[in-house]
C-alpha cells in the first residue's frame, strides 16, 4: 500500500499535521504562543520609511529559478503584500520586479489590490510591476540597470536565489539602499548575510509570512514548524548517541 521508504516520513507528516491542529486549537482558545522576533520583518517598515523620506522607490525583487511557481516565490507574496501596504500608507514609491512567469500575475494582483484597498488607485502604475523574464545574466543586468535608473532607496531580495544575489545586493549597496534578503537556499545565505542589512534565512522566510497575519490557523502552522524542528533535533541527538553506541536502529527506522 505504501511506497517503499515512506513509512517514517508518513508518521512524521501525520505528527506534523497533529501539531498544526493542536496549535490552531491552542491559539483559538487564547493561548499566547511566544514567537521569535524577526528583525528582517520589522525592517520592512524601516525600509519603507527610508523610501518615503528619500522619495525613492522601495524595490521588491522576487526571483525564481525556473518557469514554475516555487514555494519561495509563494512565501514572498506575503512579504510583498506587507511592503506594498506599508508603502501605500505612506505614499512611498513602490516597484516590483519578478522573473517568475507564474509569479508575475500574482504580484500584479497583490499590488493593484493594495492600492485599491487603500483608496488610492490613482497612485498605482502598472509599469512599476515588471516581468523581467529569463534566468540568464542578461536578465540580471536589466534589473541592475533598472535599479540604477530608479535610484532605489530600499530593496527586498527574495525567492529562489541563485548567482543573481551578488549582482542585486552589490548594486543595491552601491546605491546606498537599505536591503533585506530572504531565501532558503543555503548556498546564497552567506552572500545575503554579508551584503544585506537584514535577512530572513531558511524557515524565517516562511515564519515571516505567518507572523505578518497573526492569524490563529497560521500561528498553529508556525507552532508545528518550531515543534518539528525540536523533534528533528531530538531525533538527530538520539541517532548520534545510538550510532556512537554502535546501533543503527534510528537510521534503519528512518529508512523504512
Amino acid at each position: 500500500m505504501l511506497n517503499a521508504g515512506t513509512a517514517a516520513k508518513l508518521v512524521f507528516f501525520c505528527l506534523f499535521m497533529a501539531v498544526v491542529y493542536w496549535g490552531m486549537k491552542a491559539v483559538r482558545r487564547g493561548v499566547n504562543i511566544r514567537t521569535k522576533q524577526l528583525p528582517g520583518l520589522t525592517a520592512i517598515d524601516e525600509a519603507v520609511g527610508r523610501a518615503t523620506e528619500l522619495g525613492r522607490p522601495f524595490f521588491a525583487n522576487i526571483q525564481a529559478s525556473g518557469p514554475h511557481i516555487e514555494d519561495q516565490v509563494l512565501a514572498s507574496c506575503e512579504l510583498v503584500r506587507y511592503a506594498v501596504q506599508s508603502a501605500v500608507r505612506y505614499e512611498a514609491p513602490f516597484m516590483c520586479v519578478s522573473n517568475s512567469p507564474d509569479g508575475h500575475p500574482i504580484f500584479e494582483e497583490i499590488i493593484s489590490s493594495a492600492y485599491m484597498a487603500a483608496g488610492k488607485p490613482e497612485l498605482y502604475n502598472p509599469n512599476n510591476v515588471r516581468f523581467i523574464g529569463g534566468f540568464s545574466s542578461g536578465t540580471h543586468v536589466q534589473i541592475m540597470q533598472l535599479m540604477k535608473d530608479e535610484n532605489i532607496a530600499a530593496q527586498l531580495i527574495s525567492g529562489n536565489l541563485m548567482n543573481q544575489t551578488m549582482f542585486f545586493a552589490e548594486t543595491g549597496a552601491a546605491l546606498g539602499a537599505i536591503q533585506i534578503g530572504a531565501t532558503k537556499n543555503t548556498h546564497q545565505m552567506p552572500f545575503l548575510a554579508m551584503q544585506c542589512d537584514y535577512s530572513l534565512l531558511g524557515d524565517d522566510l516562511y515564519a515571516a509570512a505567518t507572523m505578518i497575519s497573526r492569524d490563529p490557523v497560521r500561528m498553529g502552522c508556525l507552532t508545528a514548524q518550531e515543534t518539528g524542528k525540536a523533534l528533528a533535533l531530538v531525533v538527530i541527538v538520539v541517532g548520534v548517541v545510538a550510532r556512537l553506541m554502535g546501533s543503527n536502529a534510528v537510521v534503519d527506522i528512518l529508512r523504512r
Partner: protein
Amino acid sequence: MRKEIPIAVSFLAGASIVLGFFLNVPFFKVTASRQLLNWAVIVAAFALALGAGNLTRIHVTNAAKRGKHWPYSIILLVCLYGYLGLGLWRGASDSIYQWWFNGALVPGNSTVFSLNGFFIISAAYRTWRLRNWRAALLVGTAILVVLGRVGIGQAMWPALGPISDWIMTYPNAAGMRGIMIGAALGTISLGLRIILGIERGHLGVES
C-alpha cells in the same frame, strides 16, 4: 467563486501529489501526480506569454514615448520577437537558431557571470571588518578556508588544506543541514496551508 474554485483546484492537485508520494496506488502515483506535473509545464508556458505581454507593453510604451534608454527597448523587442519568429520558422534545432544562442547569449552570460568574482571581493572587503568577536570569528574562519583552498596557502602551511576541509565538512555542513531541515519544515507548513486553503496570498487576496 473567484476564491473557491482556485482553492478547490489547489486542494485536489496538492492532495493528489501528496498521496502519490506516500501511496502505492497507480492512480495517485502515476496518473494523477505525473499528469498534474505535465499540466504544470503547459500552464507555465501560458504564464510565460503573460510575462512576454507585460514586457511588450512596457517597452512599446517606452519606445513610443522616447523614454529612458528607448533604443534598448527597440532592441529588446526586435530580439524577443525576431528570435521567436526564427524559432517558429526554422525550428529549435536549426543551426542559425542555435548559432545566435551559442554565439551571442552564452558568451554574454559568461561575461556577466564573471563579474561575480569582483562583486564577491567587494562584498568581502566590506564584511571582513573586525567590529566584534563574531565578525572576528567570521574573518578568521574565512581566511583559513580561503587559504586552504588555494595553492599558495597550502605551500605556506600544508595543514591549511585539511583544516579548510574539516571546516567545510563538519561545522559548515552541520549548520547548513540544520537550516535545510528548518526550511523543509517551513515548506511543508506552507504546502499544507495552500492545500487546505488557509494560505491565499498566491490568489491575490488577503488571507
